[in-house]
């Protein structure tokens, strides 16, 4: 037997600085808020001190964004805006390794995910939207598409850089200026992105990045001089934001939680399905709004699939996010770890059968072993509530109609998965699933050309594709 040999990525590549400042009107400046300390969730050590925005900083940033919109960005020809955004795309790619390591340090996600998914997809998102900047007339959204003005954007901690790209790229391509608030626990890559934006020579004020907690977000969303609010995060906060912009005329898009059904039929290629299920729920520690957190298995193959799943999940390596072999990294914060643990104990209390991967966990840091609940009923909290962690709830069904009914039995509707060898059944199911994205015989695919977003309490508005431009256009 070979001893396990880790393949650690060097943390020096992250170019970590002791302190980071907010990005306002083209300059890095000290914020008036209480500085926050961002923590490496894999070690619980403080990574850096980050200045946060005060109420007056938010106002300054909105004013800077308004000036930049009125004087430069809003009136600039699309072809010129395009070239700025292409620059950002290229620079993100050029600094991809630095960004990937920094993302894994700050967020806790495995380096292979930040390296192979987060950063390249972020660059691709800028690249794709750059090309739209001078082609908006062709987007089919209506004649004479115009920008909205100043956008206030609030993003979550699960894909810090990628979510910044998803928000900034379409907003800029459509001619808006932006004030963006990264998540409290993961502000670092957004501030490196600000550095890239400065290097790309974007006019001051076009992009402003203000770190801080929920109060800064609330201040931004509530600012009277923004024209557009975009939020990605929990359904709970999304509802508060929708409530707060009511009556203001601000355009709103929300990308919220999910409780996706991953439906496996008895004719599915099971080994392939196992890989997809594992990717669907353990990718990014399950900190994915579209995670396949409810596995619906056809009864006749349930036992076989569960056995295969246990065997496969037991091989997942949980640990150091910077180890290139790591499959499941650290839970982003102690708060999130507590929330996951609480929901898992509710599953036990409500009578579901818990299976936990026998994998070893590191001594320190926020880690949670991959967990699978069998015998889950629809009424249980673990079947209804978003856990946002590496926890899979398994339910069974007998007929396609029953699968549809169970899959749709949720206030959410972000994504769904279908596993079957029968093409006609995939399309039949896709017609009936109330979800914004349906993956068939694959899961968790993201591409800037493919619109992403939810039904009902998973939010409204799309990101990516032609349809995603609508969120930032007056059409």
């Amino acid at each position, binding site marked *: 037997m070979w001893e396990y040999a880790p393949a650690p990525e060097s943390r020096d590549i992250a170019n970590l600085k002791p302190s980071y400042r907010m990005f306002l009107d083209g300059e890095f400046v000290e914020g008036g808020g209480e500085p926050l300390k961002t923590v490496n969730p894999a070690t619980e050590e403080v990574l850096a001190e980050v200045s946060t925005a005060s109420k007056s900083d938010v106002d300054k940033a909105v004013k800077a964004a308004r000036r930049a919109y009125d004087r430069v960005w809003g009136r600039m020809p699309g072809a010129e805006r395009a070239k700025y955004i292409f620059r950002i795309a290229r620079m993100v790619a050029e600094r991809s390794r630095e960004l990937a390591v920094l993302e894994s340090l700050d967020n806790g996600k495995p380096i292979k995910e930040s390296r192979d998914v987060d950063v390249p997809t972020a660059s691709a998102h800028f690249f794709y939207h750059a090309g739209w900047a001078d082609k908006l007339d*062709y987007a089919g959204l209506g004649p004479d598409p115009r920008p909205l003005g100043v956008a206030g954007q609030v993003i979550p901690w699960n894909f810090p850089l990628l979510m910044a790209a998803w928000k900034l790229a379409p907003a800029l391509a459509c001619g808006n200026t932006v004030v963006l608030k990264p998540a409290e626990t993961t502000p670092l890559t957004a501030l490196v992105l600000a550095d890239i934006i400065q290097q790309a020579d974007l006019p001051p004020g076009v992009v402003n990045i203000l770190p801080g907690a929920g109060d800064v977000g609330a201040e931004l969303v509530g600012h009277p001089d923004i024209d557009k609010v975009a939020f990605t995060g929990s359904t709970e906060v999304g509802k508060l934001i929708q409530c707060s912009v009511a009556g203001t005329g601000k355009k709103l898009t929300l990308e919220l939680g999910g409780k996706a059904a991953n439906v496996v039929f008895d004719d599915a290629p099971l080994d392939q399905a196992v890989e997809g299920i594992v990717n669907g729920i353990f990718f990014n520690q399950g900190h994915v709004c579209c995670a396949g957190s409810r596995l619906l298995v056809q009864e006749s193959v349930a036992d076989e699939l569960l056995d295969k799943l246990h065997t496969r999940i037991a091989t997942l390596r949980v640990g150091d996010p910077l180890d290139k072999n790591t499959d499941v990294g650290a839970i982003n914060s102690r708060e999130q770890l507590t929330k996951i643990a609480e929901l898992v104990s509710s599953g036990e209390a409500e009578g579901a059968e818990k299976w936990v991967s026998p994998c070893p966990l590191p001594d320190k840091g926020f880690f949670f072993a991959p967990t699978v609940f069998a015998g889950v009923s629809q009424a249980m909290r673990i079947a209804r509530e978003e856990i946002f962690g590496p926890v899979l709830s398994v339910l069974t069904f007998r007929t396609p109609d029953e699968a549809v009914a169970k899959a749709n039995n949720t206030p959410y509707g972000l994504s769904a998965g279908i596993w079957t060898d029968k093409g006609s059944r995939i399309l039949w199911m896709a017609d009936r699933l109330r979800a914004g994205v349906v993956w068939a015989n694959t899961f968790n695919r993201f591409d800037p*050309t493919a619109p992403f977003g939810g039904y009902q309490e998973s939010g409204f508005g799309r990101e990516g594709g032609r349809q995603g431009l609508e969120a930032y256009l007056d059409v």
Partner: protein
Amino acid sequence: MSERLTVAKTYKLYVGGAFPRSESGRSYPVQDAKGAFLANAAQASRKDVRDAVVAARKALGGWSRATAYNRGQVLYRVAELLEGRREQFVAELGASEGLAAKRAQSIVDLVVDRWVWYAGWADKIATVLGAANPVAGPYFSFSVPEPTGVVGVLAPQSSSLLGLVSVVAPVIATGNTAVVVASQDRPLPAITLSEVLATSDVPGGVVNVLTGRTAELAPWLASHADVNALDLTGAPEATTTELERAAAGTVKRVLRAGAAEPDWTVAPDVKRLRAFLETKTVWHPKGT
């Protein structure tokens, strides 16, 4: 003290990613706008046309199957390199088209920006021209654009760089490969553009550039059975009907030329992108 003698460039063809002379061994003198000798250009033959078509066909599989994102990135890279050769193009346009420096600079700016515009279309044309078809039955039906194949391009005679870029970029942005006959009397910028393509990430054979007599080469391109489409923009006016007839032999898609060469400084639309695309419709049943 004697002045240093410059090293003059030999202008050759661009076929399959390489720079061969014409197999015919012929060349012809190229003059500047005032009639002074600039250089000899290779005078391509019928066999050079056939070699170029073979190269374009060979490159088609890889280029058309590359992801649209990849094609967009490769084309954007070309724009980056064009920008780096700005001064050279300005000088060449000054010589071949007799443009004043300022005018030549603004044309080269347009050339780079035009290339960027088409690079951005690579991963968007399918979403603009494709569709999910709401058919009246239990079927999933969708239509997507696909490249036509090998496109013969008779480049504009007057605008030797901006016109050239305006006709070549849309052909390859959608995944076609091209055999281009450069402006007969102003062929040099086309060869310099080929050098840009050769040192970018555009695979050899995706663009092939021939210099020579348009009237001599065009009929072979128009009648070649392995050419799928023909752009007549730079065809001598007296020959266009004959070329269209020759193209009918293998039902080529023909993009006709207007009465006069267009004003290439005008912002383009998607007409040239649409011209060399097929629409493929796929049906699949729905049911349990």
